């Protein structure tokens, strides 16, 4: 069993009077691609928002490499090494692709390494080099997703969390993005992928968690989950 980078135990979170997450526990293996799947409204985004410190947990713990990060402010969580690529890309309008990418490295002081990482991102997604000076929000959806992922990589994270990689993108683009993610993963970066598109997610990941109405209902190697009759029926329409 490989080393665990992220451990979540008994996590509860929500907004105002509405509790969304109930006793969520999960493990992310270092160096792997792990996915969290589930339908719209299951609490996947809330889980990521709680991990990255945008909302405070009500109970439970979140540990990164053994250190507690639950309830820490977003800048502290990012500083600890968790980058969050938000749903819908959320690129900064009016800023160029390069400026957007560099904002990902906002907390970093190691200028030389930042320059190398920028180069790596542009090698991985060559279109971003071509469009470096263009307003990032004027690109196509797929290009914007590349920029958002690149922006996440620019923080030199230990764990990259991506919310809805495939949302609103053509299947062929999703495939390209998936291949790029595998490539990034091979450099040693751990990836936590959150997806409504169960097939794509289980394809990319080695380990999967299924979330339904705020609870983890199934977990296992993605090949096992992909073969599970209930999953095939509920999410793949097979």
């Amino acid at each position, binding site marked *: 069993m490989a080393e665990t980078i992220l451990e979540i135990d008994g996590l509860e979170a929500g907004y105002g009077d509405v509790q969304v997450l109930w006793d969520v526990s999960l493990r992310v293996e270092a160096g792997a691609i792990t996915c969290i799947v589930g339908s719209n409204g299951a609490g996947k985004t809330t889980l990521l928002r709680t991990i990255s410190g945008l909302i405070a947990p009500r109970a439970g713990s979140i540990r990164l490499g053994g250190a507690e990060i639950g309830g820490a402010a977003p800048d502290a969580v990012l500083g600890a090494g968790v980058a*969050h690529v938000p749903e819908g890309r959320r690129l*900064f309008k009016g*800023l160029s692709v390069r*400026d957007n990418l560099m904002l990902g490295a906002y907390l970093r002081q190691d200028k030389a390494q930042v320059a190398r990482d920028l180069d790596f991102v542009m090698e991985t997604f060559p279109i971003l080099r071509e469009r470096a000076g263009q307003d990032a929000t004027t690109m196509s959806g797929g290009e914007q997703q590349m920029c958002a992922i690149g922006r996440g990589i620019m923080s030199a994270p230990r764990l990259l969390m991506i919310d809805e990689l495939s949302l609103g993108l053509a299947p062929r683009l999703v495939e390209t993005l998936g291949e790029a993610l595998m490539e990034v993963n091979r450099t040693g970066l751990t990836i936590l992928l959150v997806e409504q598109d169960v097939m794509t997610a289980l394809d990319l990941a080695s380990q999967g968690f299924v979330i339904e109405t705020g609870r983890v209902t199934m977990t296992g190697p993605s090949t096992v989950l992909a073969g599970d009759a209930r999953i095939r029926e509920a999410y793949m329409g097979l």
Partner: protein
Amino acid sequence: MGFAQILANGVVLGTLYACIAIGFSLVWGVLNVINMLHGSFIVLGGYLTYFAWAYTGISPVLILPVVAVLLFGLGYALQYLFINKVVSAPVLTTLTLTFGLDMILYNLMTVFFTATPRRVSMDFGRLEFWGVAMPVDRLIGMGLALLLTALLFVVLRTSRIGRAIVAVRMDREAAALMGIKVNHIYAVTFGIAALMAGAAGSVFAMVFPVTTNLSGVFLGKAFVICVIGGLGGVSGALAGGLALGIIESFAGVLVGPQNAITIGFVLMLVLLIVRPQGLVGVKGYE
């Protein structure tokens, strides 16, 4: 008075106006707060400059940076301690809070400084060129106003803190995910706005008499300039400031100075109807 003279007066006034409005525009655009304190910040900057000059005799040009730093500290503290608590509340809440803070600041100034109009009087004589006569102190004021405006523009464009301010303005949550401390950036933004207001007050006191009663006038001007120019940032304030300065200058000669303010507000109403994003504002910012 010749056309060139009226235009030159308008341009000088316009650069001062731009300097007055820039901080107001920044706070409005980034924090979505209508800062009712803005006029009093300007008056405070003017009074501090006057008294420092009157008691020490130091050149107001050297006093200006000190006043600017003091105002930055005041602005940062007010935002961090008070306004940040309600910054995401509806605009009426923050408006009420800054209105209350303004009442306090305004009355404190009236008590400590009295409402007597004060002006730093430096007699540098006047320059004449192309049939335009211009007192040198006004030209110095214009130069300082332009310098401050350019400085802010460069800071916002190129510095790390400038990038962070733009990011927070666009999407505060995504900015937080970049590791930007949003509350700190809000306070820095408010501090910069107060700094620019204080510096504008310094410049103003070198050119025109300043009194506490002007705080409402300054606030009104800042508001009109932002609407005319648009909330697109430094360029909007500069365009709006120059437009208002020139219009008031011409209106003052054509229909009398007592009507110049009315003309400015009428222009604002017209622009709100035909071009709500302002002269150079970007759609979606308003």
